């Protein structure tokens, strides 16, 4: 079975909610829809207090090139435009909507019929994806329309669908595949059409045999160009670079875009959202969220409207258990720990993980014993112990020499460190600083080149 070539770790999978059916989470009396739900610039709210909105009404416009539309997930009246806490407790602007009934925009096709014919053309698909506010559903929330329009030098060859779900605990993609296999396949075809390619792979880790089986069966039934690729269990297989490496064996060059390998990677949730957007005209207003944890009585997968309070979701599985030490938005390897439950479900929220006190506490860090386990675990071939040390001591040149900019922040190093050192904490400090230096250097080089060119031209003109 295929997998990526360097490093990797094996965290306990703990897929407690695997196989649990998708439940529809109740719509609360008030929702708050944050305006910063995508990677890049936050969206701008275009509604004001007292405005009436329906499900699917646009309430936020892109705030830049790398940004996306935001739609109302409920029908009702705009209560206020204020700030809410995001998952890390920081304040972001949001639109509060008082829920009244459940009236949808008429353009949305609410029937459950599966539409197989793709009527839209390449550019129309990309426009539709933008209009419907689709972002990467794996957690990175990269605006999909930007990813579907690669630089002209790129030569797309295939679409790779990320259904790996290598994060422990999370099962939202798994449950989505079991429930909507055919829609996903159509979504993949739409993505192929948008990219102008004729080949697609769906990478699924081997711990989801039912999903592999079902997707294979579905693909065999009218989707000949879609290949299901079972992958060996290893974290971080769901990382974009690792997935490309595992599925087609190519390496994304350091500093380059993944599309340089000819592969476009999209999350399986994104493929489904694209299907709904293009075929059903339905904006991204709901997603599947796994609410799980060892102390949770009934871990489950919830189809949740965007903007529902996180506390409501936890309430749906029986409330915060007594012995809770940490609540994480996302999975345990890359998710964000929440200081409280006052935040709201956003497009990138794939799971709510409740950890017991004993699991939540980090152990005290000891001295580095130079065992090299972090080096062997790193999927990018870096030496995390050096990176962390250089970052801590602000030795940025050395950190650059050790290629800190290649770090994908997967956490494999810290996971495997026997001395419990906070390696990634420190690497995350140094990486942006080095990236800043690199950017500045590139800008200076560009300015210099331009100045030289201008001088040459001036000399030539003389």
């Amino acid at each position: 079975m295929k997998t990526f070539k360097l490093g990797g770790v094996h965290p306990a999978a703990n897929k407690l909610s695997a196989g649990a059916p998708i439940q529809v989470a109740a719509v609360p009396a008030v929702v708050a829809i944050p305006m910063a739900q995508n990677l890049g610039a936050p969206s701008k709210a275009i509604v004001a207090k007292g405005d009436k909105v329906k499900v699917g009404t646009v309430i936020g416009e892109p705030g830049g090139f790398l940004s996306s539309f935001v739609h109302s997930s409920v029908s009702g009246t705009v209560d206020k435009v204020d700030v809410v806490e995001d998952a890390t407790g920081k304040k972001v602007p949001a639109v509060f909507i008082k829920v009244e009934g459940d009236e949808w925009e008429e353009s949305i096709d609410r029937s459950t019929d599966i539409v197989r014919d793709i009527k839209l053309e390449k550019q129309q698909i990309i426009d539709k994806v933008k209009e419907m506010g689709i972002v990467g559903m794996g957690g990175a929330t990269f605006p999909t329309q930007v990813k579907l329009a690669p630089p002209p030098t790129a030569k797309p060859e295939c679409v790779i669908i990320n259904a790996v779900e290598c994060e422990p605990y999370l099962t939202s993609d798994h449950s989505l595949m079991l429930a909507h296999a055919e829609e996903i396949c159509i979504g993949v075809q739409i993505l192929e059409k948008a990219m102008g390619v004729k080949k697609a792979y769906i990478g699924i880790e081997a711990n989801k045999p039912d999903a592999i089986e079902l997707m294979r069966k579905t693909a065999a039934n009218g989707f000949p160009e879609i290949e299901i690729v079972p992958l060996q269990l290893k974290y971080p297989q769901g990382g974009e670079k690792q997935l490309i490496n595992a599925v087609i064996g190519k390496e994304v060059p350091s500093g380059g875009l993944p599309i340089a390998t000819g592969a476009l990677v999209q999350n399986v949730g994104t493929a489904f959202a694209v299907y709904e957007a293009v075929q059903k005209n339905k904006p991204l207003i709901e997603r599947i969220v796994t609410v799980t944890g060892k102390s949770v009585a009934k871990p489950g997968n919830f189809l949740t409207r965007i903007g529902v309070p996180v506390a409501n979701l936890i309430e749906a599985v029986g409330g915060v258990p007594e012995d809770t030490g940490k609540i994480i938005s996302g999975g345990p390897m890359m998710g964000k720990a929440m200081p409280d439950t006052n935040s709201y479900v956003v497009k990138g929220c794939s799971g709510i993980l409740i950890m017991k006190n004993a699991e939540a506490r980090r152990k005290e860090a000891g001295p580095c014993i130079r065992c090299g386990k972090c080096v062997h675990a790193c999927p990018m071939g870096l030496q995390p112990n050096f990176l962390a040390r250089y970052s801590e001591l602000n030795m940025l040149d050395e950190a650059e020499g050790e290629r800190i900019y290649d770090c994908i922040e997967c956490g494999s190093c810290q996971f495997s460190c026997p001395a419990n050192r906070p390696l990634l904490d420190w690497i995350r400090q140094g990486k942006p600083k080095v990236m800043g230096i690199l950017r500045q250097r590139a800008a200076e080089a560009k300015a210099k080149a331009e100045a030289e060119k201008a001088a040459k031209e001036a000399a030539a003109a003389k």
Partner: protein
Amino acid sequence: MLNVSLSPHVHSGNSTQKCMLQVLVGLCPALLWSFYQFGSGAVIITLASVAFCLLFEFLITRFLLNTPSTLGDLSAVVTGVLLAFNVPSNLPIWIVAIGALVAIGVGKMVYGGLGANVFNPALVGRVFLLVAYPVQMTSWPVEAGYADVETGATPLSIIKRIANGETGLDVPAFMDSLLGVSGGSLGEVSAIALLIGGIYLLIRKTITWHIPVSILVSALVFGFLFYGFDVQLALDQLVCGGMMLGAIFMATDYVSSPMNSRGQLLYGCCIGFLTIVIRRYGAYPEGMSFAILIMNAFTPLINKYIKPQRFGVVKK
């Protein structure tokens, strides 16, 4: 109240203490064999060595460095057992104590404790003893017991004499050294017991294969070259003396060995080469400890210049 930290929020559960414990478990087969082979001598030396190492580490952390005790990480126990493995089973206890003091004090704590030392502490202790007490350190018991035991030559010294042109000597039997019925330091005699421990460590992923395999392969190759293309003598290099102990347990010491696979391979090959050179051309019949210590000194350099295989970087 909730805990907040950056990801990852889960940990493998591995710890320094567990790693050390694994090493101790890996040392068990050879230790049991030495108890069988050398009887009370092996028991006394091992217990004394471990006890003195723990004592000195405790005293140094408590009274010199004024830092919290580090006995719990078990690294002093590993050093103690490894030091015991490297001395003859009839060594006077006061010499063992001096060895432990040098191993823990000079080998480890002067650098700042675990993780900061340049050289393998047990080897620092052993080489100090070898230089300071050459007579006691090179009288090898060939029977069980502690005091007044009969001593004899080790296979390595016989090989050295053969290689130097002495005639009328039997080439030591490969199987004897493999099983461990010949004379030598306490823990190094049975290659097979050490191998079993090494395989255990590999299965538990406490060590990787790179260092042991590269040492053994390079020792075999250079042994073949330097001992007049004699297959028998080359094979004997692998099982005689401290080769197995060094390759599996001493050279793979986390702190003093390189961290990435490429560096480890280079380090291992150099150790194999140096060992054979010292054994063949040096004054001592055994060269493993010196070879490892020499390469320990090069470890920072290897870490600096030998980089792991990078992802997404194509060689031009």
